[in-house]
């Protein structure tokens, strides 16, 4: 195998490089082509041992009113628990809010890919016990914003309040978090 040594080593070295470069493609595309979106949020400040200090963000659009869900989801939540859903956004004042959640990929609209996380409130509907303010928890892949160790972010979590605005670039349902600004 000696004469093949160079080839073997080149192949061996190549794959990791391709992976590293490949990882940057979609984010950079999003940065260039994405539309700017502002969402209200709040955060914790835990630490990820591999990626360092980050803000664990909680968004207003994660708590969703039941009437914003499409009918198939309300009737059959278990089936949609493992599937990709889409949250359509619309502008309101200075920020963006959630318009509705649908099961089909929307065209020509501003949307985020998301998933249904907790929906026990939907069972209340079946029992006719729906409470007025019932909300369902939806998750978008926006929850981490990495900061440096000596950054200026203090632990400001206040349950119920959304004290920061997260600026992001949205492209084809994927978001790239750009900044976290206090209101």
């Amino acid at each position, binding site marked *: 195998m000696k004469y093949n040594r160079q080839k073997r*080593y080149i192949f061996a070295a190549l794959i990791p490089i391709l*992976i590293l470069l490949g990882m940057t493609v979609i984010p950079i595309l999003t940065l260039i082509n994405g539309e700017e979106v502002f969402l209200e949020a709040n955060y914790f400040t835990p630490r990820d041992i591999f990626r360092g200090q980050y803000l664990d963000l909680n968004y207003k659009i994660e708590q969703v009113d039941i009437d914003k869900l499409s009918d198939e989801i309300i009737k059959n939540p278990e089936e949609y628990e493992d599937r990709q859903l889409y949250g359509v956004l619309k502008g309101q004042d200075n920020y963006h809010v959630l318009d509705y959640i649908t099961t089909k990929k929307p065209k020509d609209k501003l949307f985020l890919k998301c*998933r249904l996380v907790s929906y026990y409130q939907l069972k209340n509907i079946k029992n006719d016990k729906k409470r007025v303010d019932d909300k369902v928890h939806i998750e978008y*892949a926006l929850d*981490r914003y990495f*900061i440096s*160790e000596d950054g200026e972010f203090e632990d400001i979590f206040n349950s119920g309040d959304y004290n920061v605005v997260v600026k992001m670039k949205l492209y084809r349902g994927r978001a790239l978090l750009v900044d976290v600004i206090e209101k």
Partner: protein
Amino acid sequence: MDKKRQVTKREYNFLAREIKFIEEKNIINREQKDKILGLYKRPDETNFIKIISLIGAILVGLGVLTFIASNWEIISKPFKFSIILLGYLLTFFGGYKSEDQYPKTGRALIYISVLIFGSGIFLVGQMFNYGGEVDRAFLLWTIGILPMGMFLMDKYILTFSIGTSIMYLITGMDTYLSMDWTVVVLLAIIVSLYIYNNKLLNSALVTLSNNILLLLYILYLVIEWRISATYVIILFLGIGLFMYIFPFKTHNKVLKIQGNIVFGFSGLLLTIPNVWEELSYIDTGNIPALLFAILYILLLFFLTKKESLISLIFIFITIFRYYFDRAYDFMPKSLFFIIGGILLIGFGYYFERARKRIGERDEI
């Protein structure tokens, strides 16, 4: 000249010691002693160098990983990314070049490149604020490292890729997103490793680690399919027994030891009544647990007779498990232990006497 026989350092030292003793007894002369020892390849002392370089590489790699995590703001992210890419290429290339002259140091440089690659993945995740858990990062790390290990025929890189696969499995457990993916990808990793190791590398370390990965994978599957814990433990009991009784040809010692440990632990868990109570049709687990314990101990004794050291260890563990079990009152427990012990000594005496009789008969 014929190829010298390969033995481990321990075996060589044993041989040298005993041959010297035999020579001193004048059973063989010096020339014969040298001739005998000359058949064997003297294992080199440079294992220590290998270890130091390995530890050094790990330290540097971990240092780089921590530096990435610190997210030092003074250096811009794109600049950090270029440094990582450059560092990866330099260490890999440096290792490649120096491997001829300095095989161990050169290989250590390549190990550093493996860790730099990993920190690169985490850096990109950090740069672009990738959401979610680190499981995807570990998957990418594995996909990058596994082919490298195969191309370079390096058992340490392959074992490390098994480690990252295990991390992928563990960190991704609660992530509902990609269960189907995980099942397929992990299976592909495990199978390709077995095939590669069997045909080309033949490393006991890889077999051992791959077995662990396979067992964890099976555990992951049964948890995802929500199979009751009792059946899971019984399943692993069966798997362990199977590994022990029918080890594959390659590295059968490894399989026997791992299988022994797996069924030993599974059996130990099944002596606990609560484990049996997990099943819906069992109210009190005391009877099944005790019945099982009797069979289990008998099996362990049988295997100890066949000189399974691990089974002997499990006998002791089981004894202490019952000794410390608060569920049994002291008096009955004390009686049980004493009577049991006396019975065993009685058996031992009986066997010894029987063997002695046979021995005397033979002499006559």
